[in-house]
């Protein structure tokens, strides 16, 4: 694993705009960064891929345990909601995708930081933008990236089951350029698989007492949402999901993956697993050590603190900090000239299908971190 500096393509911003990637600056800071790339060897990529597939299986076993032992209060989940989650799981509601975040230094095994299984973003840049970059820059090198093919395939696969191609509503809260773009990309994958797509801001979804409706008052029976389940269930229409009979992706059971209490349950079930870090509900096992404090429902690095000897040595504020926390052992991320990479491994259903590297000068990766393309040889 190496970080190699390289001059960006002459017209790089035009090149990526052509792909429809228009949020390459976030809050004025360059987000897409092709002035460097990461190079891996095939053994490293194999190791990353195997880690994601293995940890995904562990997560599924942890979900089984949460549901069979009704560990909802431990996760800060209302038991009534727990019943719906259990139904979603027992009905084997299908999933599309998710993103693991791993720390990997090119030597030891990748270590799971968290599983963004409900509302992952940075998808388009991983799937399309870095692939386009590879084709122009390193046509002879490989890239761990069959995300697009897998996504289209996954959508097609759902048609064999309870989904139909007539109408799929893709939704998120607007205006949020990054999130809108992510759902449009997901929608275009579904379109390629044969679905008719309607994009509708989530605020505009209607309820007529029987079904959800679009702006033409037509029923909505299939939804892909990029909107956290824990928000949905707390909102006025949340209670209508079940009576509506509509199908929602990602499925409700994924609320158990994006909840960071999962990390403590994983460690309890599979202690010393090489891809897991010790994680507890209480910081006392880390006395005298460095550890990370994460809100159970946080996203994008918000409200994460790194603590050493009782002092915060680094933190990121945000709006997720008023609930339960988990405490995870801190390990030093690799440092390439002051850049700290974080490996996002994309899961298409149950299969690791690609990777995106984001890096930050800070120890905490957030939605403002830079996306840097990768290749492997």
């Amino acid at each position, binding site marked *: 694993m190496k970080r190699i500096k390289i001059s960006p393509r002459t017209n790089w911003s035009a090149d990526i705009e052509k792909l429809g990637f228009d949020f390459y600056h976030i809050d004025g800071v360059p987000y897409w960064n092709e002035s460097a790339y990461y190079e891996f060897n095939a053994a490293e990529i194999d190791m990353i891929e195997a880690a994601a597939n293995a940890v995904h299986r562990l997560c599924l076993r942890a979900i089984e345990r949460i549901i069979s032992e009704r560990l909802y209060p431990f996760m800060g989940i209302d038991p009534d909601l727990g019943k719906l989650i259990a139904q979603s799981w027992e009905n084997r509601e299908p999933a599309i995708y998710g993103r693991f975040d791993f720390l990997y230094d090119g030597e030891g095994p990748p270590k799971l930081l968290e599983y963004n299984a409900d509302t992952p973003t940075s998808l388009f840049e991983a799937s399309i933008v870095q692939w386009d970059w590879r084709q122009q820059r390193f046509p002879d090198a490989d890239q761990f990236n069959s995300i697009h093919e897998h996504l289209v395939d996954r959508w097609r696969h759902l048609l064999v089951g309870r989904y139909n191609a007539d109408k799929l509503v893709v939704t998120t*809260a607007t205006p949020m350029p990054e999130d809108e*773009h992510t759902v449009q990309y997901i929608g275009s994958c579904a379109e390629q698989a044969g679905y008719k797509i309607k994009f509708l801001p989530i605020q505009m*979804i209607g309820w007529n007492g029987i079904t959800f409706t679009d702006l033409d008052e037509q029923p909505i029976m299939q939804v892909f949402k990029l909107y956290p389940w824990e928000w949905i269930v707390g909102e*006025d229409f949340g209670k209508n999901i079940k009576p509506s009979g509509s199908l929602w992706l990602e499925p409700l059971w994924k609320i158990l993956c994006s909840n960071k209490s999962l990390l403590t349950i994983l460690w309890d079930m599979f202690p010393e697993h090489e891809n897991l870090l010790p994680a507890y509900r209480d910081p006392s096992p880390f006395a005298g050590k460095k550890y990370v404090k994460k809100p159970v429902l946080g996203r994008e690095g918000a409200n994460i603190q790194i603590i050493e000897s009782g002092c915060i040595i680094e933190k990121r504020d945000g709006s997720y900090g008023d609930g339960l926390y988990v405490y995870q052992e801190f390990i030093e991320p690799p440092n390439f000239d002051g850049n700290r990479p974080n490996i996002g491994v994309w899961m298409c259903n149950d299969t690791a299908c690609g990777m995106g590297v984001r890096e930050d000068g800070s120890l905490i990766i957030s939605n403002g971190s830079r996306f840097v393309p990768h290749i492997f040889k």
Partner: protein
Amino acid sequence: MNKSVLLAGIAALVLLVGCDDKPKPENAVKIYASIDECKADHDEQECQKAFEGAQTEHEKSVPRHATLGECVDRYGADACIPHHSSSGDWFGPAMAGFMIGHMLGTPSYQPVYIQHGYAYSGSNQLGSWRSTCVSCRTGGFVTVPAGSSPAWSRSYSTTTITPSGRGPSATYAPAPASTRGGFGGSASGIGKSSPSAPSSVASPGAASARGGFGGSAAGSSAGG
């Protein structure tokens, strides 16, 4: 109280407290982590008095918790200090800093604690603890919400929903006959022109109520 423990707590908190050196112009209360910091804005005597006043108040009224867990739940692991007394051990938050009580209209000198991202003086929530920088070292501010309402809530964007323009435009066409904007509640302020109560949901088959989703976004990304 064991003085060395307290001092260690304060030394540790220099790291925790704050961001900028410059006070925010308005609606901001400055919290000082040390007399030295205070001296930039006030004369030394007043700072000394303020620090001592706050410390006395802190020793008298610091919230006591029987277990570390309780204290950590409220103030965070980073802030909790063990205390030993003849009546038993307990845990309490370190003083994050002190403030000179202009905001309250009286010259009281109060210790300040940080709880779940909000700065508190006693039971008064001063506002959202602001530290947008990552490696903050000195000086902290809280920004007091307009009207100083203690019930802080995430601010909602009042922007009207605007279609992104990237989707097929037909799906954004205003709906034909239905009345829209049928929800208040959590979605208030997000792009609805005429909120009404959920009870006004029309009979089946008629116009749909809308706005029952989306209220939680409050201007933050739903992805991650």
